[in-house]
């Protein structure tokens, strides 16, 4: 009896020890790497330098067909070849998981050496918490000086210092299905009255005028932002978001009223408030909806993506958000802005190496991203040198003559205000709040944040 007891106890202990031993192995390696990295503040690459590992967390997994991911890996491979002492260790997460993990890591001050961030309001808590390193030196360094499109790095600057470098620049046109428009004798509208006519005609003919997946809420925000910009003018919207103005502005309230009007006209596909952006987009890709307002990151789907039939791609055109009669807006004013940027962690043990890598990454990305990945970089693109689909050329031209680019509201605002904005957008589209309530809630949220 007692012999049995001992045997069982031993067996259990053995199993536990095996488990612990088996799993412990990998951790030590990391510790060694980190320690090595910490001891060697290297600046340039020479062959006999000590090994350095830069941890990079990003959201471009290798599995998705978009060439974006290939480009990331190309850049990393090239950098590792050029700097044999440097290893870039990647960790890839999807958007939601990425943001969650960033938050958990921040609470313990354990950010990766290099990572992705969004601009303005999103990054503010991280900057205020001292987690991101200022990287003005590489912004003005040899590889990147004067390379950025004017106004793009500002979105990543807080109190005069730049904390991340943008790698994308997007504007949001309204894409439309030329075949559908032709069928109903419609022209791409330039004024809001014409636009409403288009909506009315399509709706009467059983076509969803606008594809929208508003479960994600920032999608509906684009519509509100444009209407606000066109009616109340660019400055009014910017000031209201910044807190120096107010969402009470009659123009901004009118913009909210116009959203209600569009909803009443059946302007959007059925059930939009319960559909994700992917599902909303599908309405446009299926030719069940006539128009789709979205950032230029969708361009590959309308030009180069081999999974989409050429027949459909040929039907896609775009127009600028129409001007509203008597409105203060300008047709060349866009909603968009730099998308994600790269930061370097303040706590990084290999800060200098990480900065050098970010500098290289951003400049290399700028050279290749349009041609290989269809992503418009925040650095200047020489359109004459490269062969691009017409849609790209047209939109790059629009970008260059843009009078202003208003950053997406949910990125611009601080996180808590941004959440109120997004919730209110969904409520406005769902007609659960009046335009006045919409304004009041915004005002409260912005005031609370400041």
């Amino acid at each position: 009896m007692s012999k049995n007891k001992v045997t069982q106890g031993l067996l259990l202990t053995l199993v536990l020890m095996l488990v612990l031993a088996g799993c412990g192995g990998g951790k030590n390696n990391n510790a060694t790497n980190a320690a090595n990295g910490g001891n060697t503040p290297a600046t340039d690459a020479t062959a006999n330098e000590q090994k350095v590992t830069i941890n990079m967390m990003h959201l471009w997994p290798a599995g998705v067909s978009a060439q974006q991911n290939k480009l990331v890996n190309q850049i990393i491979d090239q950098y590792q070849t050029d700097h044999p002492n440097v290893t870039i260790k990647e960790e890839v997460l999807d958007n939601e998981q990425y943001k969650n993990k960033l938050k958990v890591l921040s609470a313990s001050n354990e950010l990766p050496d290099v990572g992705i961030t969004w601009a303005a309001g999103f990054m503010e808590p991280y900057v205020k918490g001292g987690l991101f390193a200022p990287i003005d030196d590489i912004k003005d360094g040899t590889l990147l000086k004067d390379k950025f499109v004017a106004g793009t790095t500002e979105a990543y600057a807080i109190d005069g210092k730049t904390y991340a470098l943008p790698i994308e620049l997007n504007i949001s046109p309204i894409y439309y299905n030329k075949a559908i428009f032709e069928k109903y004798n419609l022209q791409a509208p330039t004024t809001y009255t014409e636009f409403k006519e288009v909506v009315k005609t399509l709706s009467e003919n059983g076509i969803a005028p606008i594809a929208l997946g508003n479960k994600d809420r920032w999608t509906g925000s684009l519509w509100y932002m444009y209407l606000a910009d066109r009616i109340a003018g660019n400055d009014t919207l910017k000031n209201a978001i910044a807190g120096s103005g107010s969402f009470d502005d009659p123009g901004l309230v009118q913009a909210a009223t116009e959203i209600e009007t569009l909803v009443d006209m059946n302007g959007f596909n059925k059930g939009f408030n319960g559909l994700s952006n992917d599902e909303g987009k599908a309405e446009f890709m299926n030719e069940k909806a006539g128009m789709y307002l979205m950032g230029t990151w969708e361009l590959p789907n309308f030009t180069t993506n081999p999974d989409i039939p050429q027949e459909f791609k040929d039907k896609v055109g775009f127009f600028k958000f129409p001007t509203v009669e008597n409105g203060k807006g300008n047709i060349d004013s866009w909603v968009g802005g730099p998308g994600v940027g790269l930061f370097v962690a303040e706590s990084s043990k290999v800060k200098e190496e990480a900065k050098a890598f970010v500098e290289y990454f951003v400049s290399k990305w700028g050279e290749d991203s349009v041609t290989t990945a269809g992503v418009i970089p925040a650095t200047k693109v020489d359109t004459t040198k490269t062969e691009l689909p017409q849609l790209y050329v047209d939109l790059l031209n629009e970008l260059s003559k843009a009078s202003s680019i208003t950053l997406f509201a949910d990125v611009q605002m601080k996180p808590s205000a941004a959440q109120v904005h997004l919730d209110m957008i969904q409520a406005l589209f769902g007609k659960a709040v009046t335009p006045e309530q919409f304004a009041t809630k915004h005002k409260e949220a912005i005031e609370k944040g400041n």
Partner: protein
Amino acid sequence: MEKVMSNKLVIALYVLPSLLLIMGIIYMPIVLTGYYGLNEWNGIGEMTFIGLENYKHLIQDSTFWSSAFHSFELALFSGISLIGYLLIALVLSGKIKGANLLRKIYLVPMLLSSVAIAQLWMKIYHPTNGVLNSLLMSLGVDNPPAWLAEPSIVLLALFVPIIWQYAGFYILIYYAALKNIPESLMEAARIDGANPWQIATRIKLPLMSEVIKVTIVLSVVGSLKYFDLIYVMTDGGPNGASEVMASYMYHKAFRSFDFGYGSAIGFFLLLVCLVATYLIRKATASKETIQYS
């Protein structure tokens, strides 16, 4: 007997490892959540101690109360659906042909991850080409609802997949409990002329009473802190119509960077679960534990 069964060393050996583990991994976070809840903290850098401010805010937060109400509704629905699971388990555990195969098939959906289940039901509920609305339209319904976009029905539309998702879990437990009842008891009852209904209500159910109590607690607590499908399918929308306590906590802590407030919600949720469990145990307490004889 008495002596053997109260051997302190054995008890310690059996209980302590698990207790230490949950102390470290579950209680430490619970205590810290309670502490964070007393602070204003965005999750980064310094905290400011603000005492019960977050809870004062919580009591006045109508969004929180509506999300709490949604959680209670879910708990109620899950509780009621246990009856259905129990009936299915009773049928499957009977001596019917193919019960073994049927049981396996019935439990297959529980193997699917939430990601897959959410995708499936989003396809079912799609307002224009979804399975459900295609069916309704072919039956002549002109304008079937957009299930996940109507604030008045979205919650019910979400309860269906949630209850379906957990069906396998409870059927499995009930089934095992039914199979655990010695056949001799039922045989004796049959000889005494009991019909299947009597056997079920007078023998099977009383013998399962502990298991049933446990499942009530599991389903109520599980519902009160439910998160998965709601997060993927509606993200609490539209206009907060499907927000539940756990999703509201997540939105505050992880989206709005209000980690202090989020923690207060999390801690409050824990207290609600605690009270609910206490009440359930109290309501279902029996004077004696029924045993097989």
